């Protein structure tokens, strides 16, 4: 599978702190990659650098052979990268369907249209279709603020999915989701992404989730990748067990 994302000697310093320290990685198309690491190890910073929320101190980020270093989030999204957040970023006062419709209108390039109603039939059909895929059919009229945390997490991903990205970056998609729900959420999520041929990268603290869903794992410590490989290899690595999992 062709390389879809590549970082070359990527650095990000916050004053004296090296949040991302010389990261060189390649993500292949349609891979499911899990990123593990302790708090402050640079996982979210990497996502922020890729999606243009932060500018790197030095280094290069390439997406499908385009240099995307220093582009704004909007430009990065336009090229086919989408992301969900550790804390779901939603329009909390609007309904689930309205959130989805805004996303569909935006993807259709009509977000500036002051004339076309948001509840245009074709948009509503598409929005409801995606909501069905993510299991929201009965919550479409629900105000987002009233959704449980797991629902909000999933909706955050669903909004990114509307953009039909080639690469979807997810920051802790199951944090705040109950133990009972977490596998169902990930099953729904990854099946949908797989069907659509989307490359998925997810940051996760939950080792069970990583073991079950990641095809490849990157382990982070102090801003560096300390291990990169299949789940069994990385999670058995001594340095990963010590630095990331906290076991000998």
């Amino acid at each position, binding site marked *: 599978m062709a390389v879809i994302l590549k970082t070359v000697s990527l650095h990000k310093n916050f004053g004296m702190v090296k949040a991302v320290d010389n990261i060189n990685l390649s993500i292949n198309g349609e891979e499911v990659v899990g990123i593990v690491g302790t708090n402050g190890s640079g996982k979210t910073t990497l996502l922020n650098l890729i999606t243009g929320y932060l500018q790197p101190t030095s280094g290069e980020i390439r997406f499908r052979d385009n240099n995307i270093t220093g582009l704004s989030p*909007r430009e990065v999204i336009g090229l086919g990268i989408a992301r969900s957040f550790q804390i779901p970023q939603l329009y909390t006062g609007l309904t689930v369907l309205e959130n989805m419709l805004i996303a569909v209108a935006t993807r259709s390039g009509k977000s500036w249209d002051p004339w076309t109603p948001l509840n245009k039939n074709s948009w509503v059909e598409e929005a409801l279709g995606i909501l069905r895929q993510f299991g929201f059919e009965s919550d479409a009229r629900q105000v987002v603020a009233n959704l449980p945390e797991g629902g909000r997490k999933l909706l955050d991903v669903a909004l990114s999915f509307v953009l039909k990205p080639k690469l979807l970056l997810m920051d802790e998609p199951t944090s705040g989701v109950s133990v009972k729900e977490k596998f169902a959420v990930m099953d729904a999520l990854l099946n949908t992404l797989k069907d659509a041929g989307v490359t998925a990268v997810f940051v996760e603290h939950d080792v069970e989730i990583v073991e079950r869903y990641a095809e490849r794992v990157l382990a982070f410590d102090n801003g560096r990748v300390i291990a990169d490989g299949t789940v069994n290899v990385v999670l058995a690595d001594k340095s990963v067990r010590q630095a990331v999992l906290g076991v000998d």
Partner: protein
Amino acid sequence: MRFLENFKIGSPTAMMVGILLFITAPLFLSNWIIFVLAMALAKGIVVLGVVLLLRGGLISFGHGLYCAAGAYAVAFALNRWHIREALFLIPLSLLAGGGMAALTGLLLKRYRGIFFAMLSLAFSMILYTVLFKFYDVTGGTDGMPIPPFTILGIHPATENLRLFDYYLALILTIGVLYLGRRFTASSLGYLMQAVRYNEIRVEYMGTSVGRAIYLTYVFSGALGGLGGGLVAFIVGHVAPQLAYWTASADFVFVAVLGGAGNVFAPFLGSIVFEFVKNYAVKFSPNTWQMTLGGILLLIIFFLPQGVWSLNETIKKKVMQWQLSLKQ
């Protein structure tokens, strides 16, 4: 009975009844009330502009700027360029407000919260100072008169002028209400609400927050200009006070009074405001501001979503009543 069962506030039937009431109002209301109503509608158009921004979480304390721009555009066209045709002057006022907003919006779209409010206020005070100081051009504190104008080449008779102004305000209000409804239901209208709730998500959907704010701001300014042009026709005179900060504060006051939940709300708020203000001035000329302040306090305590939220209460009562009729 079927008519009553189908009657819902906000429904096409209710709107037709409302329009009919406003059309026939001059038949059963006195001249001064018609004048106050015309002023309320004109200012309601400006307030609708303020409300469109409020829906995006932006408070403009400078809409007096666009109101004055529209009013002075009409005054200049009549006095300096001798253009008399109202059908030209009205779009001119709209363009003046929209054009001014297109300029100031370039800077304002970068700011939020108190900075947006204060910067918009600063812009309006700059125009106020220009209008105030450039006596030879603007008439200074004396302002400028609005000489007789024509509509489709015909001069309205002096005794019919008030009626003409009222119907002009009414027609434009109906048009603006239609545009406002289309706008708030459109993708841009919803995008503005999205901006209020979460700018990060808007940017991460690949769309520009600044552009959404800018386009809405220009539309809002155009409404301000249109309302100002109408005020010029109705009052027959323009003065720098239109751009003064108290005028802008009045628009925000009315927006809060009416509520931001519906495009009708600014007009209801404006009508309530104009009548309360008129009666307050009549019965307590030295303390009318205190009366207005007291009313705003009561509204904030008891109707935090504005006077328009009474609509929901009435809807519930009507539904209960309809249910009892069926039983």
